[in-house]
């Protein structure tokens, strides 16, 4: 029983940063903007979170710094693509490269320093309960934020008027503009939200997952988050499911190896990616549903005629 709980906890830790970054990107893409800079914003959040936590000694300040740095960094992307109407794919890619380089430079003095870790939740009486205690009441604070965030985004996109407006912009920015909706303003806010989420995901890496700063510590998780959004066909609950499937397959293969199941490790390591492809194929079999969910003006620059 104990080992099951431990495995579930490990899966949750592995899935949380993917979930948060993907949920943020989902909102961005729902507004019709494709930001490939997730990895860059994430690593900025990681270095900012670690740095602030390390310098002040408070991981909570680190957490706020991670969110802030991700948001500020995404603003750069917003100004370029929304105000100056640059190509979103190219700008997003350069944002990733800039983030990887800049974070390495900012973090030079943090290398080799142990940092502050966000404490796990500990509610007297509840956390100590057998089995469900640690699962429900004993995880790190960002885990709870990630679940709440998913629910909030779900509610926002599909149950509020503003959410509907955001989705309509993503489907046709010209029509939305003709209706008098301030397309650029909405997109700015969406991109900044995405940046804040990516920053928070990075903060999870450097404040909870592995409390340290090392260059490139995101190790491609931003790209996995991007893939998850497509995998989930732009539906928040599917992002949640996808992140956890991804985490479960990954942790499962580690356990299979440690258990001595004689399967080639390369195959086991590629399982999460194979799983992604299989699910993508299954999902895209239903063309109508895919069309319905894909934001139609995704990735197209919008220049309002004045």
């Amino acid at each position, binding site marked *: 029983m104990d080992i099951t709980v431990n495995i579930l906890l490990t899966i949750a830790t592995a899935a949380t*940063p993917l979930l948060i970054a993907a949920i943020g990107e989902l909102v961005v893409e729902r507004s019709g903007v494709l930001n490939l800079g997730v990895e860059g914003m994430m690593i900025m959040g990681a270095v900012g979170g670690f740095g602030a936590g390390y310098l002040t000694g408070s991981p909570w300040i680190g957490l706020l710094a991670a969110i802030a740095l991700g948001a500020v960094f995404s603003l750069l992307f917003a100004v370029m693509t929304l105000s100056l109407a640059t190509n979103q794919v190219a700008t997003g890619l350069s944002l990733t490269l800039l983030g990887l380089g800049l974070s390495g430079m900012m973090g030079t003095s943090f290398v080799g320093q142990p940092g502050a870790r966000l404490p796990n939740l500990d509610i007297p009486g509840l956390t100590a309960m057998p089995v469900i205690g640690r699962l429900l009441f004993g995880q790190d604070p960002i885990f709870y934020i990630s679940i709440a965030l998913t629910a909030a985004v779900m509610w926002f996109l599909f149950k509020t008027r503003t959410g509907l407006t955001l989705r309509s912009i993503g489907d046709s920015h010209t029509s939305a503009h003709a209706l008098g909706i301030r397309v650029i303003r909405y997109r700015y806010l969406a991109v900044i939200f995405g940046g804040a989420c990516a920053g928070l995901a990075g903060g999870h890496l450097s404040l909870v997952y*592995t409390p340290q700063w090392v260059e490139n510590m995101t190790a*491609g998780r931003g790209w996995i988050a991007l893939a998850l959004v497509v995998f989930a066909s732009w539906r928040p609950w599917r992002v949640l499911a996808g992140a956890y499937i991804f985490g479960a397959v990954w942790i499962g293969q580690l356990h299979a190896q*440690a258990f001595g199941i004689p399967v080639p*490790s390369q195959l086991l*390591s590629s399982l999460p990616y194979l799983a992604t492809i299989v699910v993508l194929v299954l999902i895209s079999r239903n063309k109508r549903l895919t069309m319905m969910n894909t934001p139609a003006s995704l990735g197209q620059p919008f220049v309002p005629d004045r």
Partner: protein
Amino acid sequence: MKKLLVALITAAAALSLTATAEAQEKLKACWVYTGPIGDFGYSYQHDQGRLDVEKALGDKVETAYLENVSEGPDADRAFERLAREGCKIIFGTSFGFMDPEVKVAKKFPDVMFEHATGYKMAENLGIYNARFYEGRYILGQIAARQSKSGVAGYIVSFPIPEVVMGINSFMLGAQSIKPDFKAKIVWINSWFDPGKEADAAKALFDQGADIIVQHTDSTAPLQVAEERGLQGFGQSSDMIKFAPKAQLTSIVDDWGPYYIGRVKAALDGTWKPGNVWLGIKDGAVKMAPYTNMPDDVKAMAEATEKKIVEGWNPFTGPIAKQDGTPWLKEGEVADDPTLLGMNFYVKGVDDKLPQ
């Protein structure tokens, strides 16, 4: 997408060269790293060696480096770029740079090349390596003494000879203390991914291991050990700060003396391609202070270290292969080419070697 990213990163890393072209009379020495210099592990230690060269030879040399260069065909461009930019001696520090370096060395016969951990040489390409397996034997002995469950968790990157040799040496060390000692082995197919390394450590601990050994480069597994109140070994650099209660010792790579010697030879014009394999006695492999263990375990570790310095090789027979067939006879010592090409496990390793 990942490929494109990797290519772009290589390009970006190339741009970050700290090179200037004006100082002609200075010798330009250059390094290529597979990881970031901020990994606080393998690449970090090589870069410390580069800094040692700068310190020791001062204004006679100028150094430059490329970090995050992925192994394989992408590396060609990195080496070629350095050669074109006037580097006179170039150190490639990762196994996967071997073929690219051989290729580029042929194109630039006037440039001196050095490759770490590989086995291919050329007229202007020397090779160097460190006998990390010597340290791993000591780790095995300590693990066998410290472990209560009799099971160690071993996180590994890729099934190359260097790594296989490490596993074998560790197991020989452990079995010399406890013949039935077990190691659970997990391949993560990456040299550096703190998250994955942490996950692997958690999985191994969950399955009953109580000592963690790694042949990957980050401090993450030790941090997990610290959190769980268990123990483990650092890798490449002294990681005691990350795990003050968990780190038993660490194999520390010290490339400084070798690099200084080679760059000096290049300056004097006496450089020739060499084939050296440095160990504990040469100071290239160092053991971090033995901590968090009883005095008698520490004394045992120190005694083994002394024995190795005096010339004893952990791969001294009798040793059988995994399937029980004899490999080395009583007193027979494995020769270096066999070790450098090692592609089999010794007896007692509980894993199937990925091919």
